[in-house]
């Protein structure tokens, strides 16, 4: 079994069989016509031999489908390049000693969950003393001064506090993503920061369950952190990046 990395297809039980599972709802009443409509959707998606394995009447004119088919598309895996946070991840001690030796001053970090979002568990996991999964939060780092502004903080207020506190880095959490509200909020923050001439003086970092580093870069942030992030990941990034920028 040798995979052609230039043409990777989905796999069920045989190389290049293209197997794939799909489920969705159509706003039409259950029946043979609905099943056919589901099949046609699958065909348009490039699934061959689509088989509807479940059709359930959801009431009120909706029908749910589970469908299997053989996806005809392939991807060129060999040519995929993902922008990555280049620096290595350091631990609590290493981060503190790097800041101490290379910057010689405390790093100021201001964090908040912005907009109407009130999900603080994620940002608390990064900032609060007790930390997350056994890793101390930034508040515990002797070389970091961390301010956690809590939830539902307007972007403008966050920036104002950042200026006031002389922040080196601003950390924003966005958890609610319905109708892409997180993208709106995050974009607004960057625009405000630019408008206020702050953008280059501070590291802008965002995080949340639907955030990736790639997306963050696209939105104009310096870094993005997704699910499973530990406090030292963020601390490492901040320390290394500040040291880097500190150097001529």
């Amino acid at each position, binding site marked *: 079994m040798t995979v052609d990395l230039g043409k990777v297809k989905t796999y069920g039980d045989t190389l290049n069989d293209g197997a794939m599972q799909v*489920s*969705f*709802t159509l706003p039409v009443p259950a029946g043979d016509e609905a099943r056919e409509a589901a099949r046609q959707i699958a065909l348009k998606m490039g699934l061959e031999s689509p088989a509807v394995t479940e059709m*359930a009447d*959801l*009431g*009120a004119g*909706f029908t*749910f489908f589970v469908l299997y088919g053989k996806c005809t598309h392939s991807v060129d895996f060999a040519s995929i390049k993902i922008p990555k946070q280049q620096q290595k991840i350091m631990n609590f001690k290493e981060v503190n000693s790097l800041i101490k030796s290379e910057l010689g001053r405390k790093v100021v970090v201001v964090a908040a969950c912005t907009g*109407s*979002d*009130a999900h*603080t*568990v994620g940002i*608390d996991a990064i900032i609060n003393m007790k930390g997350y999964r056994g890793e101390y939060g930034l508040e515990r780092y002797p070389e970091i001064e961390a301010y956690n502004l*809590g*939830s*539902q903080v307007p972007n403008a207020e966050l920036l104002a506090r950042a200026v006031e506190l002389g922040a080196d880095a601003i950390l924003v959490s966005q958890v*609610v*993503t*319905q*109708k892409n*509200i997180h993208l709106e909020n995050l974009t607004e923050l960057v625009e405000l920061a630019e408008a206020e001439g702050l953008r280059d003086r501070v590291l802008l970092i965002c995080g949340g*369950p639907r955030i990736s580093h790639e997306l963050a870069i696209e939105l104009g942030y310096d870094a993005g952190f997704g699910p499973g992030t530990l406090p030292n990941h963020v601390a490492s990034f901040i320390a290394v990046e500040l040291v880097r920028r500190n150097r001529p």
Partner: protein
Amino acid sequence: MANKLDLDRTKIDLSRKMAGKIADRLHAWIGDYTTTTTERAAARLLGIDGIDAAGVPLANVMVEKLQQAGLLERGLVPWLSRAVVAGGETPREIAQALADGKLQVQDVPDCPEEKWRATADGLAEKAAAQISAVRAERESRIAKAAPPSKPMLYVIVATGNVYEDAVQAKAAALQGADIVAVIRHTGQSLLDYVPYGPTSEGFGGTYATQENFRIVRAALDEAGEETGRYIRLVNYASGLCMPEISAMGAMERLDMMLNDAMYGILFRDINMRRTFVDQHFSRMINAFAGIIINTGEDNYLTTTDAFDKGYTVLASQFINEQLALRSGLKEEQIGLGHAFEINPAMEDGLLMEIAQAQLCRELFPKSPLKYMPPTKHVTGNIFKTYLINGMYNLVAVMTGQEIQLLGMLTEAIHTPFISDRYLSIDNAGYIFNNARHLGDELIYAPGGKVQTRAAYLLNEACNMLQEIEKIGLETAMERGMFADIKRTREGGKGGSGVVKKDSGYYNPFPGLFGAHALAAEGRLS
């Protein structure tokens, strides 16, 4: 409900006694205050609906004007009934006139106290009669419908668009849901007014407005009629407008309300005094309207660890219960919240969930417990989530839960799709039926892991309540004893809406509701 856990009854009694004292300590001062939203709720009960040209609700306009005029200390009703006496117009017309600038607060002449009091009582009596009629309609519809089997299936809709919600609510009902909640827009709890009219622009949920209540109520009644059932509608009497939303719910035949004595403080950073005063009037309305409240202890387990802090849920339930009783709610109306939130990766975690659920059941035997699904530890692996939800359903049917919030397979991803609800109902339907009498069948080994855990939880809760009884609930919250969240006594949003009552303060509703309740004693089963 058999005593399956071999609980120490003296601990139960002591816990309840301590919670009673904690509630009494709050009630020592709650009566001294009113709040802007309490007064607005009175206004709404009296028919003051609508908005001004700028879109501000008339209730807000009136309360603000009274507050500016330094009259709110006496309450909204005295002024309003004097205005009625003076002009013979309806409260709604008076509010409109005030909003239009056609009437100034100062324009209303004084009149003899008996006069405005009688008018006030008359108006309130009429309002109460309307609510009683709504309640009677609920009861008659329920009497005609097939009774739901327990645990009842509770699902949420949360599209942000009320018209879409209505379609989905109806579909859910047709799929078998017994209870449908319309989740609110993420930001609404911090709005110090209730939006008006039908809305189609919310994130994470749909605005709670009276018109939205009506739209979804109608959709559910339709589905209920089609299926010979009665579908319960739920919203949130929570946030900065607790009592107002209770009033709206009472009028629009909502059946349940998320309504907690502490949630706003802990999770929305709302001022303590504001919250305790608001919850009291809010709950009086719910009590009178025959609405079942749902408390929010489940939320504690989202910010703290469910295994370590399981006992805080119990302590809070005892307190919520005592406060609810003091606002006139019957035990049968107190849907205490708890949750299945222990990390699924924990060895024997299921035994721990069984212990907690069974314990809640035995401590609050008449409460229609609200059991919340796994949320915190579920992931984007929708298959796994579906399975964990099944284990949650199993524990529910084994331990006799009543209000079962169905877990969604996409909990970690998005607010529910129409198919997510369908699958959740299918999940619960299978488990509840296939394990229907499992609870009757099983005995927990004496001194085994389940009994030991339950005894531990009760003991810790009892200790916590004894401590809170000493320091007071406010101090307990300052110390972060619930949900690991610390709140200051004077801080938080909405504090400026708290008003110390003047000696001339009057609000006809509390007395009226109390009297009606006495008269109707025994009506609730």
